[in-house]
């Protein structure tokens, strides 16, 4: 018996009557869903949502060159730098949380609990405001506006997601069969060696899907640069929408679609990493399951 999902086991194979009923259910649900979509489409069309000019104007070659492409690049730049900061912080804090040295452990715990409880938008905006208040980066370091905005967006993304990645790594360490570390101690490795040679490589590999999933969230969160007017996609879409007053909604939809394309590509990578994890590792199925639970526990934002 092939298994697709749980529900197939729960009832017997459908007879002619059941098949007919399920066909009718399919048709009805299909009609309802299509009806809803059609209703929305007609409503939009009635307001001229699909008028060609409204789409062509914000997608003019000049606009693409001067605004859309720089916006995508700005989003990707914030994403790349933010990921880098987040991963470095995540590894440091994550291993701090399981350190044998109490103060390190306490400090890491406070860090994680603190930054995990605050909204990212507040972190980004407040650090930006504090800096603006004292004029440190603008006067002492002499940075211009965009450099400042990028810095505080990246800092916010990195600090917040660092706390989440630290939790993911800690969950990964907890999910690792204890025999792994014991075997290391049994052959005479020191604590540091066990962590470095046995625990860390396995945890990093096991948690790769979870880390990548969090990076998808980080990519979406770059849109929060909007609150400090960093010229990322969403902010630029707003500006384009204002320039072409008739295309405001269209510009937003285009931005949403670009986000979708970027995030979807990245999440395909997560699925690929998950599949490899299932195939390649010696990690027992039970542990993979525990890791997956840890991953779904981490869904944030």
């Amino acid at each position, binding site marked *: 018996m092939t*298994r697709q*999902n*749980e*529900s197939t*086991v*729960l*009832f017997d194979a*459908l007879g002619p009557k059941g098949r007919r009923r*399920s066909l009718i*259910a*399919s048709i*009805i*649900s*299909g009609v309802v*869903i299509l009806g809803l979509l059609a209703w*929305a489409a007609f*409503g*939009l069309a009635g*307001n001229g*949502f699909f008028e060609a000019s409204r789409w062509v104007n914000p997608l003019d070659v000049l606009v693409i060159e001067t605004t859309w492409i720089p916006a995508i690049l700005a989003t990707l730049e914030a994403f790349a730098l933010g990921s880098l900061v987040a991963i470095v912080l995540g590894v440091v804090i994550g291993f701090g949380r399981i350190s044998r040295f109490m103060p390190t452990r306490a400090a890491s715990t406070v860090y994680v609990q*603190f930054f995990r*409880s*605050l*909204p*990212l*938008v*507040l972190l980004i*905006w*407040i650090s930006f*405001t*504090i800096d603006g*208040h004292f004029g440190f980066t603008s006067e002492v370091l002499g940075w211009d506006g965009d450099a400042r905005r990028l810095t505080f967006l990246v800092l916010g993304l990195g600090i917040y997601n660092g706390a989440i990645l630290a939790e993911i790594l800690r969950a990964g360490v907890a999910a690792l069969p204890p025999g792994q570390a014991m075997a290391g101690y049994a052959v005479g490795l020191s604590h540091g060696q066990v962590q470095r040679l046995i625990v860390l490589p396995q945890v990093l590999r096991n948690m790769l899907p979870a880390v990548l999933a969090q990076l*998808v969230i980080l990519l*979406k969160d*770059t*849109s*929060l640069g*909007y*609150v400090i007017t960093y010229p990322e996609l*969403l902010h630029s879409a*707003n500006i384009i929408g204002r320039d072409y007053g008739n295309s*405001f*909604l269209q510009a*937003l*939809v285009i*931005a*949403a679609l670009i*986000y*979708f394309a970027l*995030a*979807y590509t990245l*999440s395909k990578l997560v699925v690929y990493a998950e599949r490899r994890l299932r195939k390649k590792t010696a990690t027992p199925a039970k542990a993979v*399951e525990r890791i*997956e*639970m840890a991953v*779904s*526990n981490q*869904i*944030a*934002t």
Partner: protein
Amino acid sequence: MFDNFELMAEALLEGARVTVVVTLASYAIALAIGMLLVVMSVSPAAPARWAANAYTQLFRNIPLLAVLFVMYFGLPSIGIETTSWGVGLVGLGMYTGAFVGETLRSGINSIPLGQAEAARSIGLTFGQSLQTVILPQAVRVVIPPLGSLLIALVKNSALVLAVGVTELTAMSRRLIEDDQSRFDLWGVIIGVTVSYLVIAFVLSYLVRLAERRAAFVR
């Protein structure tokens, strides 16, 4: 440091109240949508499965802020009047609903196949095996991830400021940018941080309580 302390505390409390209301109301919407999605995604009707899958993919890959903006400016053009609160609650709920649906589905999938087979082999019907064997176990599995979704929602609720709901973050912004500058920067920052920490800790405590009550030994 705490200039006009009482005025500030009053404003922040009001902001915190709005944050809690937005969080709980949109969580209720999200739970309803998530349940609908999980029913659709295991139903025998293919169009329902496709729709559920499309919905989940769409909302998981678009930033919440973009969702809120598109709804805020898009809904009026299909003839739905919008208010800040309406878009804030429904947008947040629809967005979180996609995540709730995924969580519920993985909860049902996490029940070992043998459980369903055993239930069927002793002659329980579809409804009975679901009711007495699968769901009681699945509910316990999904409580922790549903709890962390709730806590994530507290933080996400800050984004409804973008459509004009004055919740805690928007309120602190208003205090700092007060045109008579009656409030000290650090005072407001400490106030808003403490408010969020308190909300998060109280909610995590309640979630842990629920977890403990539902805990079982396998």
